[in-house]
């Protein structure tokens, strides 16, 4: 697919293949992610979309037997280059998981500050500022500003997920990866997160994996359809959903399988 000429390219995969041992679960995938866009990755369960996402911030290699071939370019530089420290890379590419994962021993404030503290930021006032900004971006500030010292577990599921988004945003990453972020949320919580995607793409480049095609249609600019580890089709969301080029894409989005 060709991104608009004025859009700066942020992230790109070139013939990316992800394997567990000798079994390839993502095969030969090349996608462009323009800056300040939301790209949805859709497909049936087990099609490799989560694994694909986890290759982008080098989380896949932490799984037992996980390794990749091909390249992932962040601003033109291969993140799999030997000189790249995966720990540093993950500070540039934030990630939010399917289920909320607040750190149970930490307060709301400490959860948001965790990514900064690990990066060596200690200044009290600077931290306060970043925490407030991240919570505001995640649309959670008003709900928690009076109880920042309370345990993160005191929050509802939807709030916990927004807390995790705030935690991922606080270190100011360049790219935000969302792995089915609304899978465990109710409709109201889902709506909040989807609205957030629209807000956040002004600052970040977002890749969201989702099961839900309506969600992909609502939040994304581009959509990539995966099927058994292969990228079947990628294009502008409105085009892909109205005029899919591939037979399999049409079959999936019209609900004939998956």
């Amino acid at each position, binding site marked *: 697919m060709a991104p608009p000429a004025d859009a700066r390219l942020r992230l790109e995969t070139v013939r990316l293949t992800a394997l567990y041992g000798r079994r390839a679960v993502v095969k030969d995938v090349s996608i462009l992610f323009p800056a300040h866009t939301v790209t949805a990755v859709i497909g049936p369960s087990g099609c490799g979309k989560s694994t694909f996402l986890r290759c982008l*911030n080098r*989380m896949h290699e*932490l799984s037992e037997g996980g390794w990749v071939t091909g390249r992932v370019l962040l601003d033109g530089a291969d993140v799999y280059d030997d000189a790249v420290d995966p*720990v*540093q890379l*993950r*500070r540039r590419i*934030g*990630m939010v*998981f399917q*289920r909320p*994962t607040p*750190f*149970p*021993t930490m307060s709301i404030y400490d959860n948001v500050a*965790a*990514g900064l503290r*690990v*990066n060596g930021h200690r200044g009290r006032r600077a931290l306060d500022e970043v925490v407030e900004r991240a919570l505001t971006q995640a649309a959670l500030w008003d709900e928690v500003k009076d109880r920042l010292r309370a*345990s993160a*577990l005191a929050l509802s599921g939807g709030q916990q997920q927004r807390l*995790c988004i705030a*935690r*991922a945003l606080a*270190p100011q990453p360049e790219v935000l990866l969302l792995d089915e972020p609304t899978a465990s949320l109710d409709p109201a919580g889902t709506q909040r997160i989807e609205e957030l995607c629209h807000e956040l793409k002004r600052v970040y480049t977002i890749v969201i994996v989702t099961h839900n095609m309506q969600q992909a249609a609502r939040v994304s600019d581009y959509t990539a359809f995966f099927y058994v580890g292969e990228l079947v089709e990628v294009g502008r969301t409105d085009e892909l959903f109205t005029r899919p080029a591939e037979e399999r894409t049409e079959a999936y989005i019209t609900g004939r399988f998956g």
Partner: protein
Amino acid sequence: MSARSLRRHVTSGLMTGLVAVLSFTAVLALVLILGDLIAKGASSLNWDFFTKNPVPAGQSGGGVANAIVGTGIIVGLAALIGLPVGVGTGLYLAEYGSGRLGWIVRFVADVLNGTPSIVIGIFAWTWLVRPLHGYSALAGSVALAALMVPMIARTTEEMVRLVPHSLREAALALGYPRWRTSLRIVARTALAGIVTGCLVGVARIAGETAPLLFTALGNLNFTTSVTQPMQTLPHQIYEYATGPFEEWHRLAWASALVLMALVLLLGVTARWAIRQRHGAAR
């Protein structure tokens, strides 16, 4: 009611009755022990018992202050040596112990866990008492620590493994290095469980007698020097209970009661720590 349904009801009733009786038997042992200890020991508990040292055989009065302090010192020192090693080993096993080395460490810990404590005592005697030409509280502490390490290591490993994998991933995705994930996130989350394991481990060694026979030896006088032989409650109980004097038997019962209370206290504290954790998880 059909015959089949009736049979089910009867079987269910019988089994429920059976497990109730078995549970009662299990609890009965503890109740009898505690009851007996209180009946025979409580009357001897007085200020002197806690503050005075043993008096020469045949005389009445005196206490077991030396043994109480000795147990405190030896067990405390054993905990000081054993807890860091045990917790560190457990953390290693849970977080990095998937390879061959982990397998070996785990196997050795399991074997050590099943080693009779008297063997540990002989071992400590061979390596510490004999070369240094003298029984000492320190040797006793080392023996108890050796007994405690595999126990603590395995419970710590279990507790750390209970921490959801997703939490680990969340920290790593945030740019935490592996070691900081282990310490700041995983170990902190498992902390209540680890502390509980440690308390149970300490309670378990507090009542040990066999490893101390060849190491701390026992001492009728009050001492706080860890390079000297030192008295402990279990050892004191052993000596007094096997002695010929009525007065000694009385003191043995009282000492047993104090020791039991100490172990129960640790157990209850452990329970309380678990409750705190589950309370926080809600």
